[in-house]
């Protein structure tokens, strides 16, 4: 019975895991395939055994490209492909900037809401949340007009501000939950010892909050790193990020699945690494104060 349970556990886990992992595996191996191998009607799964892996897709994407990604397909967009690096740098600047801003501002606001008496506190929290309900497509028209007037289109600070606003609701909600859980005796004790409130916050409270802030940052990074709709319409040039670029790879003629896969793999790796580093804090980070211990 005990053995049966054990086997059952691993079988179910393997099935579920398979469903979620197979598409990832498919993207990964596609990035090492030639065009002919990718569109072949009999699928091949194992490099070296079933198909000969190539690394051209990666060099094309990262270094900028050769014209040969398979016989008969001289790619028109190879000049654009070398653009990937510039877009990647933009993505890093914009994601980094907006995440730091959102987490910092949001944490302080969450602290204030959690500890001080704010007039209309519940309404404020609902207002913060409600800004996340706006469909980006609805925001897009006025923001487009606004950004044109203020000359914020295609600037780093424009899009950073926008993504900061996108991420603030989530940060404020998670961090408020977190502060609700930390006993306020911590700061009270420090203040009894002569710290001012402000000192108590940055010497006692903030260091305590860093794991939760890191967990929150993961979500902020995921959103900014991958946002497509606004990036696609607002930034065409200087401050353009990777996701619209990925979409544009498919726009030109036949889809270059290999390059797309390679670019996607390169693009997701930094997020995976960051998530792996903070994985132990993720669980504690997302409790929103909904779980009382």
């Amino acid at each position: 019975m005990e053995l049966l349970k054990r086997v059952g556990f691993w079988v179910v886990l393997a099935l579920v895991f398979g469903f979620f992992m197979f598409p990832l595996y498919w993207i990964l191996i596609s990035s090492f395939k030639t065009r002919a191998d990718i569109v072949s009607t009999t699928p091949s799964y194992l490099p070296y055994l079933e198909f000969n892996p190539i690394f051209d897709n990666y060099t094309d994407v990262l270094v900028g490209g050769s014209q040969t990604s398979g016989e008969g397909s001289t790619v028109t967009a190879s000049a654009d492909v070398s653009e990937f690096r510039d877009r990647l740098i933009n993505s890093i600047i914009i994601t980094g900037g907006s995440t730091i801003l959102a987490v910092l501002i949001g944490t302080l606001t969450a602290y204030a809401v959690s500890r001080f008496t704010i007039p209309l506190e519940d309404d404020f929290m609902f207002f913060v949340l409600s800004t996340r309900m706006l469909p980006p497509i609805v925001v897009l028209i006025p923001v487009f007009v606004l950004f044109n007037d203020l000359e914020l289109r295609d600037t780093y600070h424009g899009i950073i501000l926008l993504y900061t606003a996108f991420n603030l609701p989530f940060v404020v909600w998670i961090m408020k939950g977190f502060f609700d859980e930390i006993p306020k005796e911590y700061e009270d004790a420090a203040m009894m010892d002569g710290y001012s409130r402000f000192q108590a916050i940055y010497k006692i409270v903030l260091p305590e909050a860093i794991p939760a802030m890191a967990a929150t940052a993961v979500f902020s990074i995921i959103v900014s790193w991958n946002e497509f709709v606004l990036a696609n319409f607002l930034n065409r040039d200087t401050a353009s990020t990777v996701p619209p670029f990925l979409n544009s790879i498919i726009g030109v003629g036949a889809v270059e699945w290999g390059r797309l896969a390679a670019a996607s793999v390169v693009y997701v790796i930094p997020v995976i690494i960051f998530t792996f580093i903070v994985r132990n804090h993720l669980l504690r980070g997302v409790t929103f104060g909904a779980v009382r211990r």
Partner: protein
Amino acid sequence: MSTAEKIAASQSPSTNRLRPKFSFLTDNRLSFLFVSPTLIVLLFIAIYPLIWSLTASFTNRTMSQNQEVVGVGIENYSELMTEDRPWERFVVTGKIVVPSVIIQTVLGFGIAMLLNRKFAGRGVLMTMMLIPMMLSPVVVALFWRFMMQGDGIINYYIKNVMGFEPILWLADRSIIPWSVVLVDVWMWTPFMMLIALAGLSAVPTYLYEAAEVDRAGAWFRFRHITLPIVAPLLMIGIIFRIMDAYKMIDIIFVLVGDRGGVGRAAQTAGLYVYDVAFKQQDTAVGSAYGYIMLVVIIALANLLIRQLNNLKGAE
């Protein structure tokens, strides 16, 4: 004070009485200082567009620059209210959002239960399970499109391995919404799993031990110990998922096209706004429809948050 004393003072506040710095920052000033940046950013990015589109929704504004904008009263709204299509878009949205969020919640919770025990490789497994939600929706939708094609790998299995008729994932209008649900489930179940795991890790073990003593069954433990503690957290996860699925357009956009595929099978309310405001360039009607969307989701969120507070109170 010498440097050494300063260091000692900063490290052991309990032994040295300090002269408080920044004491001019009273609680009142601090709360103002901390709340106002958020307020300003959100007012600038959220409220300004809201007022702008509210104003626009009562005019005849279009995308073209050289046109006289005049007020038309509630004409845009009454037009939308009386036509069938705008309502159908909400039905389509519901058909996608409701099954997606239900499946994600159940599946995510189930996976969390599986992972909520100690075994080798748990950390790696958990991180790998989170990868789908880290990918750009554009990439996710593109690769699912690739796999769901008529001669893609999924149909290869259905036809050659299982021996069934291939499924027209992206071409059959009765299946398209379910294809969207499938992709959304694949991408966002990890989020619900994470939320559920966070909840499960907060269930104190002594409760289970007590249940053990009372010889309570597995179902009883689940129903009366696990669920009540995880429920509020799960509810917040559900609220965020509903809000995001409701406004999600990028997956559908890439998977079946900007009109929602054959017969507009997956043209949700969000895509309808895109269609009206950008394709037909009718800013005014697009804004009005956006407003209707907003009112619907705010009402829904209010209802859900009330539910959430009940759950918290019932604890």
